[in-house]
């Protein structure tokens, strides 16, 4: 019984210690590029312990820290991979023209396998539009992706 109490105490304090306003920095659609360690809240505990930060026990509900706990966010009614949480990987993939983060975004948007090269090419060619400055936030990156797709006849069907 005592153990259970300790467990819930642990969960309580770790959630509290990561409390960030919804959409605030380092999480969700408000995240910026190149956030470094501060962009990885779960790491603070995980680095020494392999431990859990407590708010991600089963990826069922959205996290108590305002970040999505299951790795997805909703964009225009669509379940999207949390672009804000993978901004660094995503921006590098766009610059290179390929990569897992870019594929994940394409798949989340429902872009079929045959249109994926076109999607990757289109984003790569519009790098400056997607990332006009290092302070760009995930929601505006997402809006740019949709705008770019609408302009592309092969991709417009996925965002209409």
């Amino acid at each position, binding site marked *: 019984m005592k153990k259970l109490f300790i467990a819930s105490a642990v969960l309580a304090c770790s959630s509290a210690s990561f409390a960030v306003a919804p959409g605030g920095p380092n999480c969700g659609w408000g995240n910026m590029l190149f956030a470094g360690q501060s962009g990885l809240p779960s790491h603070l505990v995980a680095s020494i312990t*392999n431990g859990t930060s407590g708010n991600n026990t089963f990826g069922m509900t959205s996290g108590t820290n305002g970040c999505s706990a299951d790795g997805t966010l909703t964009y225009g009614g669509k379940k999207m991979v949390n672009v804000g949480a993978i901004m660094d990987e995503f921006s590098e993939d766009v610059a290179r023209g390929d990569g897992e983060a870019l594929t994940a975004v394409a798949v989340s948007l429902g872009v079929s396998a045959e249109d994926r090269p076109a999607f990757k090419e289109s984003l790569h060619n519009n790098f400056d539009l997607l990332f006009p400055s290092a302070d760009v936030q995930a929601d505006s990156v997402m809006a740019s992706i949709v705008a770019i797709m609408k302009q592309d006849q092969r991709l417009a069907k996925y965002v209409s």
Partner: protein
Amino acid sequence: MFVLRMTVLTLLLSASLPSYAQNSVDIGQLAATPMWRALLHIPRSTSFSINEPASYVDDPRFFIDRNEIFSREGELSATLEAFQLNPISTACRFPARYLWLQSQNILPAGLLSECAEYMEWREKIDVERVVLVLAASYLNSPSSMYGHTFLRLDPAGERGESAFLSYALNFAASIPPGENGMLYAYRGILGGYPGLFSMQPYYEKIQEYSRLENRDIWEYPLSMNAAQIDMLLAHTWELRDINFDYYFFDENCSFRLLELLEVAFPDLDLTSPFAHAAMPVDTVREVVESGIAEQPRYRASKRIELEAVLAELDAAQKAMVIRLATAESQLKHPDYLAYSADQRQLLATAAYRYLRYISNREERSPAQANRSLALLREMQSYGPRAVRQIEMPGRPDQGHPTSMLSLSGGSSEDRQYADMEWRISYHDALDSVAGYPEGATLMMGRLKLRWRDGDTLQLQGFDPIAIRSLAPRDAFFKPISWQVNAGLERLENIEESMVARVSGGAGASVNFLKGVAYGLPGLRLEHNDDAEDPWRIAAQINVGQLWQGNVWATELRASYIDFGGGDDIGRGVRQSAYLGINRVLSANQAMRLSLEYRKEFGLESTAAELAWRHYF
């Protein structure tokens, strides 16, 4: 609608269920099955145990039977009773028990479709493939020294094409934030923490291991059919928020994962070799040997990726990479523009990777962010570029086994001796490096016994722990090399004193002559019963040169320990020089030649020894 369906179902059940009680369900037989053992996490019984072993689960919420004394039969009877009274809520709480009992034709089909929360979870993760993941050993963190294992759950269909859409299922101690590493190691070993299963996006694991800790990740897909995956996930659901005591050595992350796999493969014995200690890499080896793992995929750490890019550059280009990473104005410098477009893209890529590598652990700064973006833009301006494939190093599951027994014969000052050494774990720098991190020595529980002609058997040394991490520094990487030792050691002085000592130090190492040269200054605290003043502290320094390899390895090293002046035993200076050459004979055998010169308090001695090492 839902309520109506519930009512109908309940009616159906209440009509059909009671029949099983009379329907000769043989509780004893059913409770003895491997599946029921696996579902309840009962340790595999050894031939020595007489009593029914209890479950590993330390949480009363996992059990239905309220009887104080746990038994398989009691829990099964209570489970069947619960299904009779509250079929749906019991199925929703224990979906794996339900699936199994249903497959035995004891319970009716279709109950789980009434479990909204469970079905929502299953639909959301929609798992088609399960992958066993090993994050390589990481000496700079006590909890990760031996590596870490967890499962990756890949979604069905196109979503399975990027690991960024997968989930990680992890068993870990739940630790208060800010707990320090040593306290963790201490409490982890003694069971001071609750352990829980948890899920999170797999990309968080990639960010944690390959980006922040620069650890390689190995992904072993498991051959599992839909029914086995169903059973695994149903059981995972049963363990949601259920508390196990977490122990560092035996009941750890890796052991719990094997138990989970045994629910999917009830006839496979994965856990019994690990009743006392479960090294993550050994558990992976066991899974591979059981035949359920496919070819692994290697995910290089960010540091390895950066090294691979740097390996293509000459010295002038490397200097340019540092200039680019320091100031984006260098992108317009004539020196940079003199390179071809292809080379410029490579240089910008290296500079970007390097900048991210050094700023990963820092707070975000506008200058660093702007520079990163400028380099990304530069990379992009030359068009798409395929990622350079990194050659897969030796697979960790194919490295030498982690326990070792060595027999050696030697001669010291014209006296012959025979040694027997037993090392519980794990690796030293002269053992074959294939599948192990470079420059690492990590030994726990090393015991050395010596028999000499005309003498009896005596303890020569005992080291509960010995760690050494050699990480070479260069223009790009500035890690610290360090070592820690604790244990008993026999001196070569007249008394042959047995001393207890703790020593440690930190220094640097560099790549030199195709090997690694190191210097590690430090301190040594020693207790010697034969001395008038038993406790003493010394300054020490170790310098050496190490060449590692898959077949041959050599180390040359010298140490100097200064206990200060005085005539008492143990005062003065101790010096030694050592040459060790290791030759791998087969996957689990090696020969090692050691030559040593010691000068302890003015007394000189030399020794030569040849050892046969067997890994198991």
